[in-house]
């Protein structure tokens, strides 16, 4: 099927819109979380060494391990969204494209 016909499908518009809606926020969230930590390490390393409460565990340790868990959560959110929202749209487009070709 011709590219133009697919591009005219309402599902195609919905797919590209839905993908944009998840793609940039999640990429930016990862980049911001990581560089916020890196920049704190560069400009204010002592702040990260401050302990939380009375213990020895520092804020940096919690934030650092937090970024690792955050990455896993981001991939989880994306896969969940993609399977629920992007996949049905993609299947609809593929089916319509198949019908008309």
């Amino acid at each position, binding site marked *: 099927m011709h590219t133009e016909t697919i591009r005219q499908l309402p599902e195609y518009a919905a*797919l*590209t819109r839905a993908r944009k809606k998840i793609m940039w926020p999640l990429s930016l969230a990862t980049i911001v979380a*990581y560089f916020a930590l890196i920049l704190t390490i560069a400009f204010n390393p002592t702040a990260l060494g401050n302990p939380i409460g009375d*213990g020895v565990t520092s804020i940096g340790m919690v934030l*650092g391990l937090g970024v690792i868990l955050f990455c896993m959560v981001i991939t989880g959110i994306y896969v969940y969204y993609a399977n629920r929202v992007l996949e049905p749209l993609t299947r609809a*487009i593929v089916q319509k494209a198949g019908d008309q070709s």
Partner: protein
Amino acid sequence: MKFHAPLAVLLSAMATCAWAQATSSSSINTTAVAMFLAFVVVTLGITYWAAGRTKTTSDFYAAGGGITGFQNGLAIAGDYMSAASFLGIAGLVYTSGFDGLIYAIGFLVGWPIVLVLIAEPLRNLGKYTFADVASFRLQQKPIRILAASGSLVTVIFYLIAQMVGAGKLIELLFGLPYEFAVIIVGVLMTLYVTFGGMIATTWVQLIKAILLLSGASLMAFLVMMQFGFSFENLFAEAVKVHAKANAIMAPGTLVSDPISAISLGIALMFGTAGLPHILMRFFTVKDAVQARRSVFYATGFIGYFYILTFIIGFGAIILLLKNPAYFTDGVLIGGANMAAIHLSQALGGDILLGFISAVAFATILAVVSGLTLAGSSAISHDLYATLVLKGERDEKKEIRASRIATVCLGVIAVLLGIVFEKQNVAFMVGLAFCVAASANFPILLLSMYWRKLTTRGAVIGGGLGLFTAVILVVIGPTVWVDAFGFKQAIFPYKYPAIFSVSAAFIGIWFFSITDKSASAAKEQAAFDAQFVRSQTGIGAAEAAQH
């Protein structure tokens, strides 16, 4: 080409002989030797089996596209979790605590980017290498030459680091001479890739990932058990024992100035999305859905693994520093990188030491095999098929070319491993990430998402990124001062990614928008069709069958 079983027997015999010789000079851990030989026998058996199933280019480069998302996620983890990161990060945590965590995070943050921006379009547009995607609507010849150069530079630097690390590790663990250790690694990886292609490589990576994850889990479990599974108790004890005391809870000397910090961050984050051996793994799954699933599992395994490594590093601080048996003249035997290995003995005696040593060796083999396969496919699929075969499809010739390329890469890797024995190669993984972030990633990302990209822009900008990255590392402190021995570096920063990645993006942007040629207009017009396929996968399935 048939797999030669006698070769395998010969190799095992050679190894056993060498070990028998070495036993006389130093004490050898029999568990380690037995475990390692078992790994070699099993993986060579798999290679024999895979060789019978490797008939087409699709089998050779992409395991016929028959790997599931879960398997591929585990194999990606197996490809990515190198011995350098296992021993290196544990060693860095052991030496300076928090600093080790900075690296661990850096190696992980690229994965959400790979998932959200790269994985699905890559699977939908490409066949065997990322150059397929970059050259989708651009001119084949210049783009493939550039992408193959970027791939090969990345692969070679990465390989040198792994080979030297392998040689030293095996020398230390098994008492084998350095050269012999490097040759064993070189021969084994060449056998896996030449005969078994992607199928054997994938299984080697799967087995290795399971071994490494279980070994590291066991060690971390044994460490945490001693501290009531409380991080606070673990940290408190480590702070008490460590010479730097509370300083291990805060950033230390690893990142000294803001430019280096941001540069290192950029290289690690975007470099992951430009590593050819990782990108290649996405072509082993059926479709974009499985590609997406692969990254989800891979990120989980890799993140989990880094948390384990971190616990292992802290365990090493507590259990090793108290025990003088692991030190000679106040220095940890074999250096900080051996912290995880010594810890395994402290936790589980010679049996666990043997197991972890064998796992470390298996880890190296899996990583170098993936790298070699990526390097040889850049040579055969991108260079040979485009420049020599000129687009004429001849699977037999292409597979033969990649097998010859594999053997050549194996020989080169062994020679470079021997040449660089006495050099500090730690910077080479960083350099590989920097080149991947500066040359491969910008071309790949913009070819997928930026309509105005033209061949001229991609070639000049990508070349600029590649060139700048390599030159700045050479004239920077790590090579100019540490390796060449000059007094002062011409370029003051250790990590140049902020400059080289910017150079690539600006170069690509400028030379694309000023490109008014007719071919440029055609390339830009082809974007819509490419984008439809990258988003929906329509056309991808048929292409993969050819």
